[in-house]
């Protein structure tokens, strides 16, 4: 990645698109320093979090991340998946954490699966629990790293619905996705990445109907042909 400059405002939904290998995931992972950027700076609410002395655990508890492969804790039930960080990171009492976990599960429509283990849930359900886990932390930003790419087509809708409801609730989101419908419908801004750089960005209508770069055009044409 080189020369990436991106500002995301509070309450904004930014969708990052681009061919695989273009550095989208790496970009997201640099934002919470899950991957250490070799150069450059990341500011979160005006604070330079790339400062080596930064308490990243505190920052990460405010920037939630949702992964392509869900990454629910496999040995814990849906409810306990959500409770773990609430008690260990936020220092909440168990009863309070449980209440919050149930509320989060309710929000993603899976309260009835509170005591199921990840292995007993469908991919779509797992991802919804993972989103619940993120939301329960009360984050200021949620980053989604291709949240629907590992899902069977018929399960994608339920996850996108949850994401849409988050967006309309005012959550700040950065979403790496190939779901152009979601990008067009929900996002405030679309960023097109290719070969580690941001080639262009703009309102979804602008990018989709009138892309300026040849590579963006080719990418979109190929995507919509499928």
């Amino acid at each position, binding site marked *: 990645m080189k020369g990436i400059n991106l500002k995301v405002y509070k309450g904004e939904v930014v969708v990052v698109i681009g061919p695989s290998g273009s550095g989208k995931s790496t970009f997201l992972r640099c934002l*919470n320093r*899950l991957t250490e950027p070799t150069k450059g700076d990341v500011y979160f609410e005006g604070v330079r979090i790339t400062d080596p002395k930064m308490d990243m*655990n*505190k*920052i*990460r*508890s*405010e920037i*939630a*991340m949702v*992964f392509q*492969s*869900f*990454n*629910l*804790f*496999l*040995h814990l039930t849906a409810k306990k998946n959500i409770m*773990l*960080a609430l008690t*260990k*990171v936020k220092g909440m009492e168990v009863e309070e954490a449980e209440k919050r976990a149930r509320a989060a599960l309710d929000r993603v429509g899976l309260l009835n699966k509170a005591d*199921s*283990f*990840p*292995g*007993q*849930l469908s991919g779509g359900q797992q991802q919804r629990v*993972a989103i619940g*886990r*993120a939301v329960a*932390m009360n984050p200021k930003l949620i980053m989604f790293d291709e949240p629907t790419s590992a899902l069977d087509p018929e399960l994608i809708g339920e996850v996108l619905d949850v994401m849409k409801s988050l967006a309309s609730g005012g959550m700040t989101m950065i979403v790496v996705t190939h779901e152009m419908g979601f990008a067009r419908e929900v996002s405030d801004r679309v960023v097109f990445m290719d070969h580690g750089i941001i080639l262009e960005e703009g309102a979804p209508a602008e990018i989709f109907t009138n892309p300026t770069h040849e590579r963006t055009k080719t990418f979109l044409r190929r995507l919509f042909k499928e």
Partner: protein
Amino acid sequence: MALDIITNNLGFFWKGALLTLEISLCAIAIGFALGILMGLGRISRILPIRLISTGYVEALRGTPLLIQIFIIYFGLPSVGLVLDPLVSGILAVGLNSAAYQAEIIRGGIQSVPKGQLEAARSIGMTYTQSMRHVILPQALRLIIPPMTNEFIILIKDSSLVSAIGIWELTLVGKELNAKYFEPFTVFIFIAIVYFIMTYATSKIMRRVEKKFRIPGYGAEA
């Protein structure tokens, strides 16, 4: 006539078997505690810790247990550390097993999907919290079958401490054979007693495995 040797000396065998069990259980505990530390040390990001753990594993895995027993029991007194034979025996078997258990635990930790640690870290948990609450609970479940192997090997290897005069099962057998000269009867019986212990271990570990199995995770067996 030959079976009389067994029946007349049941008390002696019983004591030997109990001692074998005691040595084995203590050594398993030492091996497990130290094995977790060394296993984590093997994958530590801190180079000196990694080097010490790797050196430990290689040294104790690469030399005979019998020699390690001799070093602790006969060798340490010359640097001023005199240990009771039973303590020496337990320590030697335990320290030796720690090297093998460390490798099993390292393997277990590394077979937990990478995304688990990422998810834990990305939600704000420290490395230690992630290990303790996310990685180890899964790794410990994964390593039950190879650990069963290690425990069984340890029970059998504990027979080597007979060399420093600990009256465990094997030394009892040697003594009774010297007295009656009925090696076939005596050692077959000794073998059977060892087998009962190892078979019980295998059964118990199978139970543990089932009890801690995560619903919907891994093979349903």
